[in-house]
């Protein structure tokens, strides 16, 4: 996909998004004008600003046809094809990590993601990878669960029980 194509798609997409929001305000029955005795209606702010968004998107589409922006003239690929695999794998890996959290819990997901990234993409040694993974897991546990008292997701009950054991240990012996 060239940058030129992406520019048009983005402008049209954002236009549709803006119109969608305007419609949503209308469908919810929010007032977009002055409510007598009360003041500006609740729809005023989002509606007229979304209209502004729609108009600027239309303007961008017009400029695309007239080729006034540098993006609309740019025929080179939208995302650098040499680096696209790296970007895609990084983002997909992150997404997979977030999905896994609901199943195996935060710490296992973090460990898997970090381990995967460092070994497969970074091609680092097992020693460095293991050290970093352990360090990261400990740091997150210490900082967020211990100090900030946040309960991070632990996944399915099988895994959660394991972590509860660790928490019990902490509360009984370390604090």
């Amino acid at each position, binding site marked *: 996909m060239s940058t030129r194509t992406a520019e048009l798609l983005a402008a049209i997409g954002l236009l549709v998004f803006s119109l969608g929001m305007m419609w949503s305000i209308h469908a919810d029955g929010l007032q977009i004008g002055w409510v007598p005795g009360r003041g500006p209606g*609740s729809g005023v702010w989002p509606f007229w600003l979304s209209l502004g968004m729609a108009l600027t*998107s239309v303007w961008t589409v017009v400029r695309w046809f007239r080729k006034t922006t540098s993006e609309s003239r740019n025929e080179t690929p939208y*995302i650098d094809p*040499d680096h696209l695999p790296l970007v895609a794998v990084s983002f997909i890996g992150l997404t997979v990590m977030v999905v896994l959290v609901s199943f195996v819990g935060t710490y296992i997901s973090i460990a898997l*993601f970090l381990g995967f990234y*460092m070994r497969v993409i970074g091609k680092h040694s097992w020693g460095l990878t293991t050290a970093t993974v352990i360090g990261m897991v400990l740091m997150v546990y210490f900082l967020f669960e211990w100090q*900030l008292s946040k309960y991070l997701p632990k996944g399915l009950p099988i895994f959660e029980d394991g972590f509860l054991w660790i928490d019990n240990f902490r509360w009984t012996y370390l604090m």
Partner: protein
Amino acid sequence: MGEIFDLLALGLLHAFEPLNFAMIIAGCMAGLFIGAMPGLGSVNGVAILLPVTFLVPPTAAIIFLAALYYGAMYGGAISSITLGIPGASTAVATVFDGRPMAQKGEANQALMAAAVASFIGGTISIVLFTLFAPPLADVALKFGSQEEFALMILAFATFIGLGGDDIPKTIFSILLGLVLAAVGFDIISGKPRLIFFDMVEFQRGIGFLVLAIGIYGIGEMLWTLEQTGGKVKLDFVKTTWKEFRQHLRVIKKYLPTTSLGSGLGFFVGTLPAAGATPASLMAYGLAKTFSKDPETFGKGNIAGVAAPEAANNAASTGSMLPMITLGIPGSPTTAILLGGMIIWGLRPGPLLFQNNPDFVWSLIGSMYVANFVTVALNLALIPIFVRVLAMPFTILTPIIFILCFVGVFATTDRMFDVWLMLALGAGGYLLRKLNYPVAPAVLAIVLGPLAERSMRQSLISSQGDLTTFINPAEHPIALGCILIAIVLMLYPIWLNIHRKRAARSGGESHWQG
């Protein structure tokens, strides 16, 4: 006047309390590191580490983040000079002459000049801050909702006028942020608005931190991965005390340029929304204009390093001024700081000086201390930082991703917000590639609720009269702000007519502070 000294002395005392002092050191080190890493700037550091600061009381938290902001201004120069890649957008101007100096073998000189200039910029701006803050807070006490709204219009106009980006796209970005801020329940009428796809989770609205971390954490990493392919190349640097003294003598010559950069930096920083990035670029331009040998700029002129470095440090302090006194962020980083303060339960603005003087003056005191600490750390640790820059991106990237995920979850306790962060991060990255600036959206989502409230309150009190904002008799300050806003918005059109401007590439105008 005497009262200011008393308050400042108290602030300095607080700054030396163990926790606060530890925060200064931690913040400076974090900032130096973050600023030095290519692709990460103060705004990324502040966004990603904001959740971590909930560990400590708000005073310590803001001292940490302010020191981080500072440190990042110093650190940005390290990457610009040794790698030729700006450590952050705030250090772009430093590359112009810093990189050629490194290539000529004068990297030491350049790094030293950057550090000293940053120190001078910081010192001058902190003094100016101390002098201007209380009177400005007094003036702001008289502000009504019309003035508040007009100031926000001015903030957005600054982005449009001085941002240097595509105007319709900048306007879109601002409006998008303002509208996203409206998702959820309307405060005044209590009705739900813009609940996308009727998903109940949207009723809590879209938190600014989710957007900020999405864009400046996830999006930034994706961007840098694409730009560099995960690889960076280093020129090694060694420093000795003898060289340090030699370099110091040379830098004395450039004191006037540095001071000019500092003053300019401070005032550009105080402008709402414009921060260290435009300040450093302007300072470079000004230094070149006033130089006796402008043709040496771009080839390794020390003034080309000193001026922008002084300016970016001065601007970071300057941008805290409107944030603390008026409640309007002076830069993208302070926009996130502002959001953080709201989360902590503090409302920045003139009342903060009255209700929480300890907080404000501890912050101001800490800035003086942070300035000294950072320059000392910077000079002492340059060799170490240069080595750390060689940390592979393949280790940094997943760590940042993990911190973003845990940070957002820790703040909101919802996986929904994590997914939102991913979506906004990816979306922000894709739009940024098309030259849609993202900083205005982040600023807008922070200011959105305040702006809407000011607008509605103004119109309610004026019974629907739109001219209330520009009425010279009742609201002269508001009128003044709106006039300046109009001038700023017309400025790019003026530039277009008088100069043929080459289309700017996307990367430069991504503001990281």
